[in-house]
Structures are given as C-alpha cells and as structure tokens.
C-alpha cells in the first residue's frame, strides 16, 4: 500500500535524491524549514507563556509532528483549503498564517485570528484557507467534504485537505465522510496524523486495523502510509492525491506515522507511555532530519540554518510582543458574531 504514493526516482537522470529536494526550489525548501522552526518555536513559546499563566484554557501541542503538517501543505496553493484539529497550530502555520495574530488569539486579544473568541482549539485563518481547528474529534472531516463539494461546483481545481488524528478514525463522522466523498468523487484529501495515541489510548488498543490507511479500502479510495517525520516523503505522497483531487478523480487517504513529544494536553501526566518511547521518537526529530537532508544535498549551509533559527527567534519575540500589546475584546461585544450582523432596514 505504501507503494502507491512512493514514486521511483527517474531512471533517465539516475537522480536518487529525495523527492522534495528534486521537486522544490532551494528558496521554497528553506522557507519550509523556516516554517517548521516557526511551528516548533511557536509551540514551545506558547507552552512557556501558558506555564507563566499568560494563556488561558489549555492547548494541544504538535511538537514532533512538524513534517506532516508542513509536508501536506507544501504543494497547496493559497486558494486550497484545510480543516484542522485540536492539535492544529502546525497546520495553521504551515498553511501560511501569521504567528503574531496566532499569539494574539492565544492571548484572547481582539487582533487574534478569531478576535479572542476561539483560542488555541479553534485557531483558524479563513482568508489563508484554514477553515479552522476543531474541538470535536472528527468534527472537521464532514465540513471538509462539504467545502470540497462547494469547490467542485464553484472553483474546480481547488482541493481541501482534512487533517485529523488517529483518534478520529473510530468516529462515525470519519466513516460517513469518507464514504460520501468517495461516492461523489469530491476533491478532498484526508490526512491522518497517526501519533499513536488518542489521548492516552493507543491505536493498538482502540483500532481494529494496524494501519488507518486500511480504512480507505472500505470506501474504494487510494491510500498511502508514509513516515510522517520525513518531510520529503510526506510531500511526495501528497502528489498523486493532489493530482487525483484536482482532476476530478475523487478523494484519497494519507496516513502519516508520527509522534507527539508532549502530552495530549497540558494536563497530561504521560502515564500511558514510557520515557524511552518518547526519547526514541525524539531521535527521529523531523526538523533535524530535514536539516540534515538540506545540508547533505547542498541546499543550505549550517550558517544559513542557524540564521533561520535566529530569524524565527526574533519573529516569535515580536509576535508575542504584538499579542501582549493588542487590545482585549470589549465585554459589550460578548454577543457579537453569534449571528451574522444584518442591516436593519
């Protein structure tokens, strides 16, 4: 099954470099690295702010999963759309969001993407094509199908990527949605970020099949499994799915095997997994692996990588400052946005 998405290196050129190195320009690859760093540092900083009591509520960190978010979004156009999950910061940044407005949202400010009404769990960037993270497991999947249905009619060629976790694969909404998208051949790509645990319950204990990609068979759609910590593999696996969606072929399912370094949420005490397991996955850090690859194929120098990291550091600092200085929403606007404001005649 994995073979479906894995393309062979072109025999004529005998080019055996990874797909991403072959496919994208150096600038785009460096930008991808910047965004992956941005995701990592955004989440680390958000976690820091949370621990200092500057951020309300809770948050679900995707540290360790940056390659799947960035890889899945790499070939999307600004007009393509995504639906995201409660662990959605990475998707949002990968789709091009401004971290300053994201921090502003985390700080509950009026300048945030959701004007302080959504917070981490509903982070969105509608103008940038992110229809929003979702607090309900599998909640975004049917919406992605509907969005794809509208795109098929109104904007042929646009695709919707629906991110979800392994936990969602046991929700009815997942199965109903895959079936419907397949019956109607809708331009949607289901991207499962399988990090091994639905909160504390492992896929082994919760899911009857070993690979979530297997579910696709029941809905007559192509599927693939990739190393979700390998940026290039993810981008490569996305290509046939995108082609199929853009040309009216219908949906595909891609399963990215990955791992979250942090707990489910901030209240997680990690009682269900071992330190060794976490360390083992940390050795497969997607950012470090991408950097090695860029160095190996001469796309970037160590110096440039350091510069990227430094740039991210400055951007994060400025973003936090922006958020802190942003105005709070007014309590008198509590009811604003419940309904669409209509002009009274």
């Amino acid at each position, binding site marked *: 099954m994995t073979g479906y998405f894995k393309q062979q290196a072109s025999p004529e050129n005998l080019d055996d470099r990874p797909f991403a190195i072959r496919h994208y320009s150096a600038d785009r690859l460096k930008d991808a690295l910047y965004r992956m760093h941005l995701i990592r540092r955004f989440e680390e900083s958000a976690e820091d702010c949370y621990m200092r009591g500057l951020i309300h509520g809770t948050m679900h960190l995707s540290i360790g999963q940056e390659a799947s978010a960035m890889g899945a979004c790499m070939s999307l156009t600004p007009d393509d*759309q995504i639906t995201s999950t409660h662990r959605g910061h990475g998707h949002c940044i990968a789709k091009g969001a401004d971290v300053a407005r994201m921090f502003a949202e985390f700080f509950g400010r009026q300048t945030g993407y959701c004007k302080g009404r*959504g917070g981490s769990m*509903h982070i969105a960037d509608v103008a940038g094509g992110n229809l929003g993270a979702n607090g309900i497991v599998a909640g975004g999947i049917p919406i992605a*199908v*509907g969005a794809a249905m*509208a795109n098929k009619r109104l904007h042929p060629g646009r695709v919707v990527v629906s991110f979800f976790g392994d936990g969602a694969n046991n929700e009815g*909404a997942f199965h109903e*949605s895959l079936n*419907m998208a397949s019956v109607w051949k809708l331009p949607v790509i289901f991207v499962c970020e399988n990090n091994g645990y639905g909160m504390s319950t492992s896929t082994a204990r919760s899911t009857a099949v070993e690979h979530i990609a297997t579910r696709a068979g029941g809905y007559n759609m192509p599927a693939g499994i990739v190393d979700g910590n390998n940026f290039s593999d993810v981008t490569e696996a996305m290509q046939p799915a995108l082609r199929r969606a853009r040309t009216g072929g219908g949906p595909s399912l891609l399963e990215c095997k990955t791992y979250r370094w942090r707990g489910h949420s901030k209240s997680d005490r990690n009682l269900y997994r071992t330190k060794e397991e976490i360390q083992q996955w940390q050795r497969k850090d997607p950012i470090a692996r991408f950097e090695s690859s860029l160095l190996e194929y001469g796309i970037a120098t160590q110096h440039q990588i350091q510069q990227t990291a430094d740039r991210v550091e400055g951007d994060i600092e400025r973003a936090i400052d922006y958020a802190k200085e942003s105005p709070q929403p007014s309590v008198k606007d509590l009811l604003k946005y419940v*309904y669409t404001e209509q002009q009274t005649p």
Partner: protein
Amino acid sequence: MNDVSEISYAEAIKDAMAIALQADERVFLMGEDIGVYGGAFQVTGDLVHRFGEDRVIDMPISELAGAGVAVGAAVNGLRPILEFQFSDFAALAMEQIANQAAKMRYMLGGEVSVPVVMRFPSGSGTGAAAQHSQSLEAWFGHVPGLKVVQPSTPYDAKGLLLAALEDPDPVMIFEHKLLYKVKGEVPEGHYTVPIGKAAVVLEGRDLTIVASSIMVPRALDAAGELARQGVSAEVIDLRTIRPLDRETIVKSVCKTHRLLCVYEGVKTLGIGAEVSASVVESEAFDFLDAPIVRLGGAESPIPYNPELEKAAVPQKENIIDAALALASGVR
C-alpha cells in the same frame, strides 16, 4: 400582487424550494430519498426531474456527515437545504448542528457565515411511535447561533423557507407531518415571512394562547368554541422560537391578563417554559391576573397506540378546558 392559489403545506415548501433552485445556482437540496422517490413525505416530489441530480442530491443514510457536508458547503459559498427524513434523526447529526453549524461563526470571530437550511419533519399523530414522532425544536432553541422556525400554515411554510434561504445563518425549520396535507392560500412567486416575528392570528380579550406549529390550528379551533362559550381568546402563532418574539407575547398578556402556552414538545423545559419566563420577567408580570398555564407534551416517549398517542400531546379539548378554567377564574 401575486396570484394566490390554494395549495398544501408540502406543496408550498416544494414551491419555495423550486423558486430558490430556479433563482440561485448556489442552492441545492440534499437528503435521504429526496430524488426520484420524492422524499419520505413527498415534499421534494418531482424536483429532481426539474433540476437534476446535481441540485437534488440523494445522500447516503449518514445524517452526521450529511449535516457536516451541508455546513462545509455553506461556508464555502453554496446554499444547501438539507432534509432530514424525520426530525428524530437530528440526534444523529447533533454534533454538526450544535457544535459546528451554530458555533463556527462565533469561534472564528465572525470570519465565516454558515447559511445552511435544515428541514425537519416532526411531530406525532402518524402512529410512527417514539423514534419518529418527536418535537425536538426546543433542543435547537437552546443553542445560540441557530435560528429555529415552526411554520403552521402553507403561507408561512413557504415564506419562512424563502426567508431562511436569505438568512446568513443556520436556520432549522421544523415542519409538522400532520400539516403537510393541510391546504391554504399561498401567493405565487417569491415572498418572505420574517424570521423572529410572531403573529397575532386571532385577537381576543380574555386570555392569550401562545402556540406553535400544529398547536396553532388547534388553538384556533379551540378559540372558536371558546367564543361560543363567551370566552374571547387571543391566539399568537410563535412562528419562530429562536429568536423568540417576546414583545408580541408581552404586549398581548398585558391586554388579556392571562396566558396559556400550548406546544407539542415535552412540557418540562420546553417552549412554554421560556414563553412563561419571558412574561413574568417582563412588564407583563404586573398584569397577570391568574397563574400561567402550560399545555405541553406528556413526560413520556410518544406511544404507538392511537389513543395513547393522542393523549400524549395537547388536543383541542385540552386547550378548551384549560382556557375555560383560566378565563373563568377557576385557576
């Protein structure tokens, strides 16, 4: 003025959908067996032949995803009308309705609107028993972000549906199954009935009967009998239960001093509770001359046996008895 014809409630709804399908390419219908079958209650009828399978879409029996697809399509610029085969099946779709459709605009800080219309054939009286006969509108009425309407006449059924299609937010339409065949005067062509406005359908002096859906014709029947017995009842058709038109109710109660709420949904924590509370919270409190009376559905599932089924929801006789007791000072 448009020509007026005498058509049924179901035909009026179909007429509204046909007008919308004709006028706006973005409008489409989705539901179970709404295509060649014509819908479980024959509301969509032959629309699939007139507008094609791309506009009148038979969907898999997947209420949850169906609702979500409608939400996603609405967010992305289409105008879906989703038909549930029975309102009871909304329970399967509640996640998408209550957590997504209703909240999406708010959660996203006003960045999107969700102009989805959902139609729910509801109510008892058909012998369909507990899982196909409920009146669940109060569930939906409890969710900010949704608008909930309950037309009681063919005229309102068409006008409210066309208003729902012009509304930028999710509108839940609860149609009563027993009303589908009821005929009434309906103008041809496009017109709307405003969402959020109740109607005083009968003016009266001695008490106010606030009713919704099928309880409106029942209340009007009762009011006729009450008039013969010397009691003058004012009848208000709520038409919309969210947002509730408190002003019309309060004004009427200030005039009549007595309030009887009649609704088919389960009495406890139902529409009548909200209507009653709205009255006692308002200036109408000082004008009440008797306790408020609620007539609602029984605290039981809807039973199958016809006599039990009848007893489970207010009937005309119950309305007459309650109104007489209220107006004559027995209560």
